[in-house]
């Protein structure tokens, strides 16, 4: 039970924990070793190691290591961005949430998608024109380097750490269930492979691992959704009707006066308006502050390709979320009605083997048999591997490029030293990720991706967007506002019910902050802090910061002076 809660927690990371914990009632199943899945996963690993070997031979310069030399096309980068975003949490967690609660899953999908247009309109092109390797290049463009780099590196590392813990714990639990392998092995395998990909292959390998995985995941999910639609004569209405007939919450979960079909409208997941808006803000703007995503914009040749890549990414991600919705409903109709997938057929839908996150996996078995089950399991593992690689590369870049090369060496670091520091950081981060994965094995980590999104939305995003558009911003305003956002997001999460009650074990209802997500307040503090302390700043440095806006503006709009793609 505890393991299952953690699995569910790790995968469906942004969901309020209490809602999830109630929903899981399957017993822990020790799965038999799944050979087709293991063989397909081995094939994926061999292929990606081959790519890493190829990538390592061309990864000589810092530009190659951090950004694949700007040689990725918009379409490839769109797939890679979508790959970074379509994590196991999205795939298994959202389809599992749809399986349990129906419509509530769609609320999350929508929130995770709508940040992308904003990134396209306001961030993608200036980011590409101003930056070189990390988003801190952009945020610190006209400011005093050291304080902004330290702030951005802190924002990056905290975001990456929480995201990584959730992914590592999720990986361990998932592999335990999918492959019948012990938790520890899984965590070690993920840690070791990610270190190999990133240290030897840098961004080139990380990008291609992500692209391959994105194609496999989109292909597999498309097949599942297609088979579900085939089973219902391509009529979503027939699918929904059948789901309402078999889903136990269809009658129980509805809002007073509403359609009794509770899975066809918002359920209990979002209770009060403030939490709904706050969660919406975190999901929407967190996207625009995730360091491993922002870094991808430097892998393309210019602003035009950056813009195209978000357009493709938005399309792939939107399509993918529509698929997960169909897959979730497919699981309600085809998995919950089949005793083979239930621990106790008498208990129905909630008694799904392995918990709700296994809904998509069981559906793969139901529509495609054992070999397809193996394929989807292998893709799920590959997904985690690819996402942790991207996260680790972003974290290592913050250490080597922002902290070492800029802060410690004052921008005069030897390129080979910088790459070496980056590789050492990767190994250290990989080892830390494994250790954290072991420490948090039996902890509830549900809040961590939600926290990562809140911090990204409250620290990285405000500093980045204000530095691009707000002429009057100064170093002092950025640092104070950024740290206010970072601190208030952290404190807000710790004092919220998800951590205060569910993790720290305090009495129900005793949480000092009643809302499950701090973004509404922490974002306001960050933006307000940046504005206020910039206005109050009359220092010489502040004048220099404001004077730097015009040259920065010309470059951000036209790309004149932007770092180009390196020769291949």
């Amino acid at each position, binding site marked *: 039970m505890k393991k299952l809660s953690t699995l569910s927690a790790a995968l469906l990371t942004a969901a309020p924990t209490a809602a999830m914990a109630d929903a899981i009632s399957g017993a822990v199943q020790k799965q038999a070793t799944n050979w087709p899945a293991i063989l397909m996963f081995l094939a994926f690993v061999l292929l990606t190691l081959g790519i890493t070997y190829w990538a390592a031979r061309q990864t000589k310069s810092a530009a190659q290591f951090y950004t694949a030399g700007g040689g990725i096309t918009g379409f490839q980068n769109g797939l890679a961005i979508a790959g970074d975003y379509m994590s196991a949490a999205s795939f298994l967690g959202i389809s599992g949430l749809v399986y349990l609660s129906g*419509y509530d899953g*769609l*609320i999350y*999908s*929508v*929130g995770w*998608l*709508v940040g*992308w*247009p*904003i990134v*396209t*309109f*306001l961030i993608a*092109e200036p980011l590409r024109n101003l930056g070189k390797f990390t988003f801190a290049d952009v945020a610190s463009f006209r400011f005093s380097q050291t304080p902004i780099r330290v702030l951005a590196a802190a924002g990056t590392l905290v975001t990456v750490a929480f995201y990584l813990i959730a992914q590592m714990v999720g990986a361990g639990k998932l592999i335990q269930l999918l492959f019948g392998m012990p938790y520890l092995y899984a965590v070690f395998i993920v840690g070791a492979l990610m270190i190999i990909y990133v240290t030897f292959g840098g961004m080139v390998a990380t990008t291609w691992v992500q692209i391959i995985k994105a194609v496999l995941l989109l292909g597999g999910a498309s097949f599942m959704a297609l088979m579900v639609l085939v089973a219902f004569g391509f009529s*979503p*209405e027939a699918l*929904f*009707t059948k789901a*309402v007939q078999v889903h136990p919450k269809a009658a129980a979960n*509805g*809002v*007073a*006066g*509403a*359609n009794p*079909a*509770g899975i*066809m*409208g*918002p359920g209990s997941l*979002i209770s*009060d*308006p403030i939490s*709904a*808006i706050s969660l*919406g803000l975190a999901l*929407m703007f967190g996207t625009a502050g995730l360091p491993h995503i922002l870094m991808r914009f430097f892998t393309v040749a210019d602003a*035009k390709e950056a*813009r*195209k890549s*978000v*357009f493709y990414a*938005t*399309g792939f991600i*939107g399509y993918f*979320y*529509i698929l997960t919705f169909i897959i979730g409903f497919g699981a309600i109709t085809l998995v919950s009605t089949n005793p083979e997938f239930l621990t106790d057929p008498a208990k129905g839908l909630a008694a799904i083997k392995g918990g709700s996150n296994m809904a998509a996996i069981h559906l793969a078995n139901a529509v495609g048999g054992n070999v397809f089950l193996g394929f989807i399991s292998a893709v799920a593992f590959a997904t985690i591997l690819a996402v942790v690689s991207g996260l680790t590369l972003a974290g290592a870049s913050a250490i080597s490029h922002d902290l070492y090369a800029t802060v410690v060496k004052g921008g005069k670091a030897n390129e080979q030293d910088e790459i070496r520091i980056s590789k050492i950081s990767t190994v250290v981060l990989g080892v830390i990720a494994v250790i954290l994965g072991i420490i948090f094995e039996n902890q509830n980590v549900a809040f961590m991706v939600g926290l990562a999104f809140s911090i990204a939305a409250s620290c990285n995003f405000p500093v980045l967007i204000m530095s691009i558009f707000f002429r009057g911003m100064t170093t002092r305003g950025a640092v104070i506002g950024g740290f206010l956002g970072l601190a208030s997001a952290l404190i807000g999460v710790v004092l919220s019910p998800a951590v205060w009650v569910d993790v720290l074990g305090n009495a129900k209802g005793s949480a000092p902050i009643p809302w499950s997500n701090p973004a509404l307040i922490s974002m306001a503090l960050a933006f307000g802090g940046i504005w206020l302390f910039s206005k109050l700043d009359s220092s010489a440095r502040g004048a220099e910061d404001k004077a730097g806006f*015009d*040259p920065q*503006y*010309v*470059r951000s*709009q*036209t*790309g*004149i002076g932007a770092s180009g793609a390196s020769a291949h």
Partner: protein
Amino acid sequence: MASYETIMNNPKFKALVSERSSIAWALSIAMLVIYFGFILLVAYAKGFLATPLGAGVTTTYGILIGLFVIISAFILTGIYVRKANARFDDLTRQIVEESK
């Protein structure tokens, strides 16, 4: 290479910046209105979202609206990219040429 002051005074630069920022902010506001409109419905009008499209139909307004938000995100992005590819890249190229 022209200085940034010269570029800022180039009428083409002024046109690029004003056209781009008006469409970028307009589309951003459109996306925000659509999304937070949806969130407000989730918060305040759960019953409406759970209402079936008609008698004997299971599909609800909520499903259609959710789908609409997803598709609108893609379409708004497409509108921007189309406009940028056609107009802004051209202007930018001219500005860069004139600044050499």
